[in-house]
C-alpha cells in the first residue's frame, strides 16, 4: 500500500496497536522473569519437583517390569515428565491469582495499563520454561534408569503436539485462574477433591485407551490426555495403544487451545467487571 493512502487516523490506530503489543510483550517478559529466576534461586525444587516425581516414576516403572511389560516403562517416564506441567498449571497458574490477591499484587496488576491477559501469559510462559527444565530432568533420569528407547515417528508432529498441548493446558490454567479468583474457597476445595482422580483418568502412567471410550473422551477435556497420547504415538509406535489418530488429536487440541484461550479472556473480563461492580477483588471481607 502506498503511504499516501494511509489516513492520519490509520497511522494513530497502527501506532496504538504497536504500542499495545510492545506493552503486552514487556508485561509478559516482566511477569515471566520471577518464575524463571526462582528456579535458579530456590534449589529445593530439585527435591520436590524432580526427586519425588522420579521416585513415583520408578515405582510405576517397576510395576510394569514385574508384570512382564518393561516396554511400557517409556509411557511412565513420559507421563511423569508431563505430570510436572499439570502440577504447575494447577498450583502455579490456576491458584496463582488467588495468591496474588492475598499479597496485594493483583490490585497493582489490575491498575497497570497492560491487560491482565498479558500478565497471565507471562505467568504461563515463565511457568512453562521453568517446568520444561524440570520435566527434561525427570525424562532424562527415568530414561537412564529404565533404559528407555524412543523411536521418533515425526519430530515436527511431536513438537506440534507438545506445543498445542502446552497452549491448551496453560489456556485452561488461565481460565481456571479467574474461576479460582471468583469462587476461591469453593473451587479450592473442589480442586483438592478432584486432583488425583483427574490425574488418574488423564493417563499419566498408562495408555488412556485402557479406560474405554467414554471415560477417555471425558478425560480429553484435560489437554494432557490427548497430548500425552499423541506424543506416545510419536515416540513409541511399536506399542500401539493409541486412543485416537494423531490428526484428530491435533484438531481437538487446536479446538481446546482456542476454547480455553477465549474462555480465559472472557472470564478475566467478566471477573474484572464484577470486581469493579461488587468490589470482590479489592476488599478483604468480600
Amino acid at each position, binding site marked *: 500500500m502506498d503511504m499516501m493512502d494511509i489516513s492520519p487516523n490509520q497511522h*494513530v490506530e497502527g501506532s496504538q496497536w504497536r*504500542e499495545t503489543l*510492545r*506493552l503486552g510483550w*514487556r*508485561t509478559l*517478559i*516482566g*511477569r515471566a*522473569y*520471577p518464575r524463571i*529466576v*526462582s528456579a535458579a*534461586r*530456590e534449589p529445593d525444587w530439585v527435591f520436590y519437583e524432580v526427586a519425588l516425581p522420579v521416585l513415583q516414576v520408578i515405582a510405576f516403572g517397576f510395576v510394569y517390569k514385574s508384570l512382564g511389560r518393561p516396554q511400557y516403562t517409556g509411557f511412565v517416564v513420559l507421563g511423569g515428565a508431563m505430570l510436572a506441567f499439570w502440577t504447575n498449571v494447577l498450583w502455579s497458574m490456576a491458584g496463582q491469582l488467588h495468591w496474588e490477591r492475598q*499479597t*496485594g*499484587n493483583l*490490585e*497493582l*496488576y*489490575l*491498575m*497497570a*495499563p*497492560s491487560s491482565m491477559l498479558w*500478565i497471565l501469559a507471562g505467568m504461563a510462559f515463565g511457568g512453562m520454561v521453568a517446568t520444561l527444565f524440570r520435566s527434561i530432568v525427570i525424562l532424562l533420569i527415568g530414561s537412564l534408569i529404565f533404559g528407555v528407547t524412543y523411536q521418533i515417528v515425526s519430530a515436527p508432529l511431536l513438537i506440534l503436539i507438545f506445543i498445542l498441548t502446552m497452549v491448551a493446558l496453560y489456556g485452561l490454567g488461565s481460565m481456571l485462574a479467574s474461576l479460582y479468583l471468583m*469462587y476461591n474457597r*469453593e473451587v479450592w476445595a473442589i480442586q483438592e477433591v478432584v486432583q488425583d482422580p483427574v490425574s488418574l483418568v488423564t493417563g499419566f502412567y498408562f495408555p488412556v485407551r485402557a479406560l474405554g471410550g467414554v471415560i477417555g473422551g471425558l478425560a480429553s477435556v484435560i489437554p494432557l490426555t490427548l497430548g500425552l497420547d499423541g506424543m506416545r504415538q510419536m515416540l513409541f509406535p511399536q506399542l500401539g495403544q493409541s486412543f485416537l489418530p494423531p490428526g484428530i488429536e491435533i484438531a481437538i487440541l487446536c479446538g481446546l487451545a482456542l476454547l480455553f484461550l477465549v474462555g480465559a479472556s472472557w472470564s478475566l473480563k467478566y471477573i474484572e467487571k464484577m*470486581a*469493579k*461492580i*461488587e*468490589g470482590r*477483588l*479489592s*476488599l*478483604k*471481607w*468480600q
Partner: protein
Amino acid sequence: MTATQLYPGAPAIQTIDVRRVYKSRSGFTFGGQKAGKSVTALDGVSLTIQKGELFGLLGRNGAGKTTLIKILTTLLSPTSGEAYVDGLDVNKYVIPIRKKIAMVSGGEQSGYGILTVREQLWMFAQFYGVTSQAAHKKIDQLLEAVGLGDQANQKVYALSTGMRQRMNLCRALVSDPEILFLDEPTVGLDVEASRIVRDYVRSWMQEKPGRTVLLTTHYMFEADELCDRVAIINHGQIVAQGETDDLKKGLQEHARFQFELSEWAPAFEEELKQSRGVVSAQTMNKKGKVSVQIALENEEYITSAMQTISSAGGHVLTLRRIEPTLEEVFMRLVGNSDEDKAAGEDEV
C-alpha cells in the same frame, strides 16, 4: 482527538456526588448467590483537587477513604455519581487513566521476595512499558533518593518494613506517574522511615509542576505538615475541606493565649474575668509554674488583658498564642461517640 486531550486544564481529580454501596455476600452456592446486607461506603462525595496539589483525605477506619481511592484508581465503579482523573471519566477511560496514576498502600507486601529490589522495580516498570534501559536509570535515581542505593541487589524478603515501604514508593514512581495515590503510606513505619517517605513525596512533587498527590492518613501531624488542603470524611460524607489553617481558624471561636507568670496570685483569674473582651480565664499552677489561659473575643484585647495582670501585680514571663491542632479540628468534626465501633471495622 485522543482521550488524554479531552479536557485540557481539567483538575487532577474531581468527584461529583459519588456514592458507593457494597452488598456483602452472606454465602454462595453454585446454584446462586444469597443476598447480604448493604453498606454505604461513600455517600455523595464531591471533591476537586487541582494539579500540583498535595491533598489529604482524613477519616477514621471505615470512613470511606480507601473506597474513594479505589474508585479513582479504576479498581471500583461508583454506584452513582461521577469521578474524573485528569478530566477522564473513571468508567470510560480506564487505560488512559492507568497510564497516569500509581498507588502505594500502607503495609504493602506486593512483589516477590525472591527478587532483588532492582529486579522487583524493573518488573513493575515493564507493566507500564518502560524500556529496560530507562527503567534501570530511573531505578538508580529513585533508590538513591530514598536511601536504598546500597540495597539495590538485596533480596526483597530481607528488607525491613521501612525499607520495603521505601521500595514500594519507588515501585509507584518508576513509571513516572502524574497522580500518586498514597493510602496511609507511613502506617507502621518508624520515625526515620516515615520522615524519608514524607520528604521524598514533597521533593518528587517539586521536581515537576503538575504532579499531584492524594494522601490518606490517620496521622494528623503528617497531613498538617504535608498537605496543601485536606478533606475530612466521616461515614462516607465529606464533613469539611479546605486549607488546614482555614479549618483551624474555623474551629476557633475565640483568640486563645497562654501567659506564664512569675508567681501565683488568686486575684489574677478574677480580675481577668472582669477585664474587657475576656471570655474565660483559667489559672494553673503546675510544678511551680504558674500559667493563665485566656479566651478573648478577639486578639485585640490581649493588650488590655496584659495590663490587667500587671496592675494586679503579676509579671508576665512568656506569652504565646494557642492554635488549635488539626487533630482538634478532626475530633470536633468527627467526634468519638462511636469510635470503638469504628475501630473494629474493616477499611472500606
